[in-house]
């Protein structure tokens, strides 16, 4: 269906726009790890999450309107930043170590900045006018990111991890192409069958007059 093409295009758009600033993941992971999302390894996961097919008279015989929602999940992890070399040096004075600790940048502050920056990048990549259609091969309508939410940092762990999510909605059509079924042995797809039609005109009895239909099997 066309939503699969749009999903693939979204992955391409996000991947092209990353420029080394994040990783694009085109499916929903079962598990993730804080250490896999540190600094520029932070990740953007995009996947189709729901669709609506409003019933209409036009859709009974023609293309069906598909209002689709893609979920975009952002994960960023950060360590604190400090002058580690000074803290670890055997020759550092107490005053130097105190200065290093006083200048420390806390991980929770850096993680919060990182997830905000990541959302800013992703929003600008996806809402760029150049990507209005979510193409190629598609001219989607009503592309829109309607909001962004982020979690509080997890209170435990050696890396402070922030998670955020946004929903991208758009509208496109789906063609019903039909789907072949498996045969009784579960093999292949049954091909369209040909129907032989003969006119039966038995003069002996009027009860046998009519149309005889024979299923001649696959073409």
């Amino acid at each position, binding site marked *: 269906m066309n939503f699969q093409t749009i999903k693939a295009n979204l992955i391409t758009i996000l991947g092209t726009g990353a420029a080394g600033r994040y990783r694009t993941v085109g499916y*929903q*992971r*079962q*598990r*993730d*790890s*804080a*250490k896999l999302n540190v600094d520029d390894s932070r990740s953007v*996961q995009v996947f189709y999450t729901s669709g609506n097919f409003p019933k209409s008279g036009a859709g009974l015989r023609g293309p069906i309107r598909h209002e689709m929602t893609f979920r975009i*999940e952002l*994960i960023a992890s950060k*360590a*604190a*930043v*400090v*002058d*580690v*070399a000074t*803290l*670890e040096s055997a020759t550092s*004075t*107490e*005053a*130097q*170590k*105190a*200065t290093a*600790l*006083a*200048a*420390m*940048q*806390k*991980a*929770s502050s850096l993680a919060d900045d990182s997830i905000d920056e990541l959302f800013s990048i992703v929003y600008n990549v996806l809402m760029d006018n150049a990507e209005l259609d979510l193409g190629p091969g598609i001219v989607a309508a009503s592309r829109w990111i309607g909001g962004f*939410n982020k*979690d509080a940092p*997890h*209170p*435990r*762990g*050696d*890396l*402070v*991890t922030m*998670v955020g*999510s946004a929903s991208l909605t758009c509208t496109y059509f789906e063609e019903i192409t039909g789907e072949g079924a498996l045969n009784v042995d579960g093999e292949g797809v049954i091909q369209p069958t040909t129907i032989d039609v003969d006119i039966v005109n038995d003069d002996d009895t009027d009860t046998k007059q009519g149309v005889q239909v024979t299923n001649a099997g696959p073409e």
Partner: protein
Amino acid sequence: MVDMRALVESDLEDLLEGDFGLPVTLISPAGESVTVMGQVAYDTRRYDPTTGAEMIIDTPVVTVRRSSLPTIPADGENWSVRIPSTPTVTGELETYIVETPLQGGRSYGWITLQLTKVSQSV
């Protein structure tokens, strides 16, 4: 009559600084270093953010006896902690900082430090 406080303190010495103890170096906000024996847990935890995907996160935790410290860490202060990277006395030391609020133990004389990784400033 048994002095329960003294008994607890003695138990803490055995539990935290005994055979399973590891050297832990704390650097105070004033830059003063002290090395004591303490318990180091290299656990990994799982939690569920709103994404629906489970997150795995390492949670190194140090527990030391308050009476072994010349200065007790307080919330909001910038402390650094160095622990062995492996649970061996001779393990290479790794540097962390204490960013997470401190946890309990004042009644019974220990303090728990949850550690945060650090990267080198430029």
